């Protein structure tokens, strides 16, 4: 059991640091996140820089245009990006984290050749059309219909919570192709070009006040059968492949970002006064800062354990759900702590003169996205109880 970098890993880290120290300060300042198109351009610029430096598709196989990094190198990459305060993946999230890896695992050669390059260089943006108004946690209950018509599917239905739908070029879409089959057996995974006629995207404003996601209405949208990934009615299995990437390392970057937030909160607690002294001198606040930092350190260690187990081929299911459940909880407590430290400075979603508080207040709201999206905390508990501890199934 060891945590130290091997010589090769240390070398990888060193080169990466040199590059980041050079490139991060040269980036333009990030746009207002409410401006989706400006955000998209910013994310594309950042992705292009990574692409040119050979870091795009860090964990993708070389044969598919990735860097073919080992899982350990992947973690080092994420760790160093956070350390350098580099931008996050932004609207490249679905393409790089979901669609790309799914196409590599399940797509045809034509589909890979058509789509992987645009994901890697940041020019193509993807969104995820899985959830529906009637199918959230119970995703397999989805009803968006696809009817075969020659070499096309005709798709009608509604998706919801589709992040980045407004700016996306493609959508990974789950549709029902066999309404008579048991619910897991009649689903198909399609690549939907967002420019197809019959799509209407209506923005939904989140409680953070930005239009991160949208409703996507589909009215007789024609999708070539050639856009199907996997077999017809085998889409549930393909979707589980997609989601396994989400449950792998998807939350690691923001977990590392949370450590930066605690550090910044510790700094702020020395400047913000609480009664007679700085908030830092309040033992309750100090202990909670220490507790949250210790828990984030522990989640980082758990990530390393999961990655080690992943390298030896065992699927880190315990690690995955334990991580997500615990991380969501820490994220909520971090938000609550921020509000205690900031006191009245926590009443604004933007920075105050001399006081960068906006990201803490945003963070306290973002905590809900963590405990709701990608398998809510209740669903994670069900998974742990039933699949890991072997307790009886609900139904």
């Amino acid at each position, binding site marked *: 059991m060891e945590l130290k970098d091997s010589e090769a890993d240390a070398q990888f880290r060193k080169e990466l640091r040199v590059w980041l120290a050079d490139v991060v300060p040269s980036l333009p300042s990030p746009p207002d996140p409410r401006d989706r198109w400006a955000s998209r351009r910013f994310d594309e610029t950042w992705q292009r820089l990574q692409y040119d430096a050979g870091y795009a598709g860090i964990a993708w196989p070389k044969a598919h245009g990735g860097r073919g990094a080992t899982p350990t190198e992947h973690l080092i990459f994420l760790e160093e990006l956070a350390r350098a305060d580099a931008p996050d993946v932004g609207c490249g999230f679905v393409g790089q984290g979901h669609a790309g890896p799914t196409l590599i695992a399940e797509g045809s050669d034509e589909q890979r050749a058509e789509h992987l390059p645009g994901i890697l260089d940041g020019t193509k943006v993807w969104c995820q059309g899985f959830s529906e108004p009637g199918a959230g946690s119970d995703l397999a209950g989805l009803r968006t219909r696809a009817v075969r018509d020659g070499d096309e599917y005709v798709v009608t239905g509604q998706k919801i919570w589709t992040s980045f739908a407004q700016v996306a070029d493609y959508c990974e879409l789950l549709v029902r192709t066999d309404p008579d089959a048991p619910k897991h057996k009649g689903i198909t995974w399609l690549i939907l070009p967002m420019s197809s006629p019959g799509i209407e995207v209506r923005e939904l404003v989140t409680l953070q006040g930005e239009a991160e996601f949208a409703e996507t209405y589909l009215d007789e949208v024609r999708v070539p059968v050639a856009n199907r990934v996997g077999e017809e009615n085998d889409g549930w299995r393909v979707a589980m492949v997609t989601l396994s990437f989400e449950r792998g390392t998807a939350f690691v970057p923001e977990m590392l970002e949370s450590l930066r937030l605690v550090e910044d909160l510790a700094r702020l607690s020395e400047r913000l006064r609480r009664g007679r002294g700085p908030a830092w001198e309040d033992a309750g606040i100090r202990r909670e*800062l220490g507790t949250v930092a*210790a828990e984030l350190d522990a989640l980082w260690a758990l990530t390393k354990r999961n990655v080690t187990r992943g390298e030896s081929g065992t699927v880190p299911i315990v690690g995955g*759900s334990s*991580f997500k459940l615990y991380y969501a909880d820490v994220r909520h407590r971090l938000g609550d702590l921020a509000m205690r430290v900031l006191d009245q400075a926590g009443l604004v979603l933007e920075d105050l003169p001399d006081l960068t508080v906006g990201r803490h207040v945003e963070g306290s709201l973002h905590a809900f996205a963590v405990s709701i999206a990608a398998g809510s905390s209740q669903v994670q508990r069900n998974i*742990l109880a039933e699949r890991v501890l072997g307790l009886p199934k609900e139904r």
Partner: protein
Amino acid sequence: MHFDLDAGQRELQSALTRFCHDLFPVAVARESGEKGLDRGLWRRLADMGVFALALPDSDGGAGLTVVEQVLAFEVLGAGLVPGPIVGSTLAAGLVEGASTGDVVVAAVTATDGPVLVPGLRDADWLLVLHDDRVELVEAAGIHGDLVSRPLDPTSPLTRLDAIPSGEVLLLGAASDALCRTASLLTSAALLGIARRTTELATDYAKTREQYGRTIGSFQAIKHMLADMLALAEVASASVHAAGVMLADTSAEAERAVAGARVLAGKAALHNAATNVQIHGGMGFTWELDAHLYLKRARLLSVSHGNVDAAAETVATQLRGALQ
């Protein structure tokens, strides 16, 4: 990086688990509390090599590191193994006969407030861990009163009027290192309790029936168990990482050791308490072992540090790293 148990480390844990199962059922811990430590069994524990794991081969040890000690203490904690196991492990190599089990060494960290020393009744020597030094005192020369109703009935407790003083054994860095090891091995035992109580509660939830179904099919119970599992998993990553960092004498070891106490203390206290709750009325009985895990967790959670102080240490380290 390879952050997982290797084959030898797994074997160490499973051999020790079998050993505890065969020789240290919880009944032994109960009896030890009432009647005194069985020195024969103590020597068997020493023969398993637990006290000498980190001693060099030349001193009769296994030549391993604090990582293996941590893994061993996780198992010993889960088994509620009685006696001053932390003290005797710390004393191996410092006090003649400790590693072979011929003498029993208790340990206490000097704190303000009443002086209550677990395991002193059965010990030949007492290690006293101060901020800046470690002292050794002969037990026979210490006057104290045995507490008639210790919270943890499997751990005899002696009340002293003051911290006794003795021969200074260690100073400076060596003393600091010993204190960190004491804290971390205690956290490892707490982790063992967090894991064991998760198993016990899960097993019970699969068999106990109410309303015509097993209680483990109720989502309220399932979710309690899932939380226990997650707490134990995350605590395990924390405790093991602290072991590796301590073995590497990493600059972040102090933060990691304190963090391990925060996580393991929280997990053990929560899981041991939830285990009582899940056992219902049975959980409230003296006869069932559930209360023993809770009481041992409470004892360990304030031995060689505590969760609040550890959280403060992490916060201080966090701030220090920023300057």
